[in-house]
């Protein structure tokens, strides 16, 4: 069995940890630079605020309904995510962190007996009261279980995965005050669907166990195919005209048809929906094949010096990500665009690509390559500069990424990874990483990075409650 633990409306839930007054009220969190709504409370969703709605388009709804608006507070979200992961790791030695708000747990070979965790967390179930243990649940299944869910059913006598799912959710809530939906199923794809059911049916108390074939069929018959993990909007568009609307319809296609239309990834999803585990459990996150760091600016940038500073910072951040996954890249592109929301003004999109003579993850190499690309882009005939426009957003993209162990990915070079010069450079970049780790990012930086800060707007940011001593929540004693 696999479990998927998915934090509900994660960024909003983080904002509510220290603001219980916001529970039950509409809350949204904006993307970097206060652009678009990226996390919405259920109340905000009910007001019709959509994922990705730009703030200026929903300002009216926000003001009329007193929606609480927050800028992204990544130090807080990162810390809360770490706490949830820590709780999850108590339930399984194998936790695959899939994103900041989602993790898979490998429950294969899970023994029976101690899954309720009573011994490790005494009294929790009893104290919470409303979260009943397995015995009580059996007596009250009829009224509490919604149509589309599964009745508790134990494949191995004594193993109660439904109770385990609720327990994981309860423990996450108790320790972190983040609501988490836990789905347990024979495959990762089905576990994802099970966790979505928890959000739809509050009576599941945050935990859903989906495994009996008849239950799976009932659920898949109602589940839109485009919401299935691994089926993108593009695949769904191909399926629509074929009359395939639900996940169940998809599983009814023949294996050869799925393979022909959607290739191996599609076949994997098809099998997973049919209860055959195909997606491996990955304790180690696969290194990314491309890395992009981009931001939009508060004030549009129309001078080269200003743009260079931003690009240098993007390049540094991209190099950090590259180094964290211990990869090297051989291509770097810089791009910039004008404000796409200003329909009255002409638009420009500019970019320039630099190919490095040899694969690298050296900060100096990547920052200087980015500045070279920035200059070339600036000089281009269709650049904003040439047309008297200003840039609203820019970014750095790293491509042709590979591992040291697999040099065949790279173009032949004279100074291969591991040469004496490369090693010396690696020590320098390593020292920069060590200084960042010990004294904070930006302690030592390149002159071209300016003050090292990306000019972003974060007008509505909450305090860094859990990561800065000056920001810890205040409390009165009465």
């Amino acid at each position, binding site marked *: 069995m696999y479990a998927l633990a998915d934090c509900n409306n994660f960024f909003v839930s983080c904002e509510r940890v220290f603001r219980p007054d916001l529970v039950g009220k509409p809350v949204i969190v904006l993307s970097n630079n206060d652009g678009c709504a990226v996390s919405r409370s259920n109340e905000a969703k009910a007001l019709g605020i959509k994922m990705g709605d730009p703030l200026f388009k929903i300002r009216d709804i926000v003001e009329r309904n007193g929606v609480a608006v927050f800028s992204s507070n990544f130090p807080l979200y990162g810390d809360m995510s770490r706490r949830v992961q*820590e709780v999850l790791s108590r339930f399984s030695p194998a936790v695959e962190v899939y994103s900041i708000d989602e993790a898979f747990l490998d429950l294969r070979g899970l023994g029976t007996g101690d899954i309720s965790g009573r011994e490790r967390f005494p009294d929790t179930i009893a*104290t919470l009261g409303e979260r009943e243990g397995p015995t009580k649940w059996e007596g009250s299944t009829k009224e509490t279980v919604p149509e589309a869910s599964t009745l508790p059913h134990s494949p191995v006598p004594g193993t109660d995965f439904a109770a385990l799912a609720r327990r994981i959710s309860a423990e996450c809530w108790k320790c*972190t005050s983040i609501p988490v939906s836990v789905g347990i199923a024979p495959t990762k794809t089905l576990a994802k669907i099970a966790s979505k059911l928890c959000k739809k049916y509050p009576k599941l108390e945050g935990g859903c166990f989906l495994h009996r074939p008849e239950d799976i069929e009932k659920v898949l018959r109602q589940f839109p195919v485009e919401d299935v993990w691994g089926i993108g909007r593009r695949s769904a568009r191909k399926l629509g005209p074929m009359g395939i609307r639900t996940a169940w319809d998809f599983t009814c296609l023949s294996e050869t048809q799925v393979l022909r239309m959607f290739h191996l990834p599609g076949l994997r999803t098809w099998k997973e929906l049919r209860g055959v585990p195909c997606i491996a459990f990955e304790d180690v996150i696969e290194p990314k094949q491309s890395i992009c760091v981009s931001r939009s600016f508060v004030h549009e940038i129309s001078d080269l010096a200003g743009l260079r500073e931003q690009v240098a910072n993007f390049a540094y951040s991209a190099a950090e990500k590259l180094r964290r996954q211990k990869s090297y890249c051989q291509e770097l592109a810089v791009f910039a665009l004008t404000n796409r929301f200003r329909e009255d003004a002409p638009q420009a999109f500019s970019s320039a690509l630099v190919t490095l003579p040899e694969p690298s993850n050296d900060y100096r190499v990547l920052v200087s390559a980015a500045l070279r690309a920035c*200059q070339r882009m600036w000089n281009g005939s269709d650049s904003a500069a040439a047309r008297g426009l200003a840039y609203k957003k820019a970014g750095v993209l790293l491509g042709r990424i590979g591992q040291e162990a697999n040099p065949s990915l790279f173009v032949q070079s004279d100074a291969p990874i591991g040469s004496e010069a490369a090693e010396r450079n690696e020590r320098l970049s390593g*020292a920069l990483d060590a200084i960042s780790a010990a004294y904070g990012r930006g302690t030592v930086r390149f002159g071209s990075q300016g003050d090292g800060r990306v000019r972003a707007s974060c007008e509505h940011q909450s305090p860094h409650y859990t990561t800065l001593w000056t920001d810890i*929540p205040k*409390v009165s004693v009465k």
Partner: protein
Amino acid sequence: MKDFIPHPISSSVIPSEVEGSLLPEGGLLLGAVKAGFPSPAEEVREKLDLVKLLVRHSASTFFFQVDGVSMVDADMDEGDILIVDRSIDPYNGCKAICFVDGEYTVKRVEITDHGVRLLPANEKNSKYKPIEIHEENRFMVWGVVTWVIKKV
């Protein structure tokens, strides 16, 4: 081209002897002692870690700061740091961060057969009346205070 070479921050900024100690391997000093008898201290790497004492469960432990005290000589003073562990169930007599009237307040929680009441955190304080807790506001207790850090 010269323009695009970033400012040199190489060896002039990071002296080589410092560079070594910044690397994660660490422990270079102890390992370097080779002559004579091995120091018995070499085996003993333990030291007292205050965090281990104060933070039992790092997933559920949060810090708060006291801001607004209604009496003098209280055991919790302005500026004190409170260590709060959400994984601990409220017990009779515990001091806890409670959410009362739209704000965080430290209260003493009384749990008896008659129900749950929130009392003033500082026992001698009679200014505040006990607050009865009812079913509908069961999330009032945010977390139990486990330590108070006080600067003297």
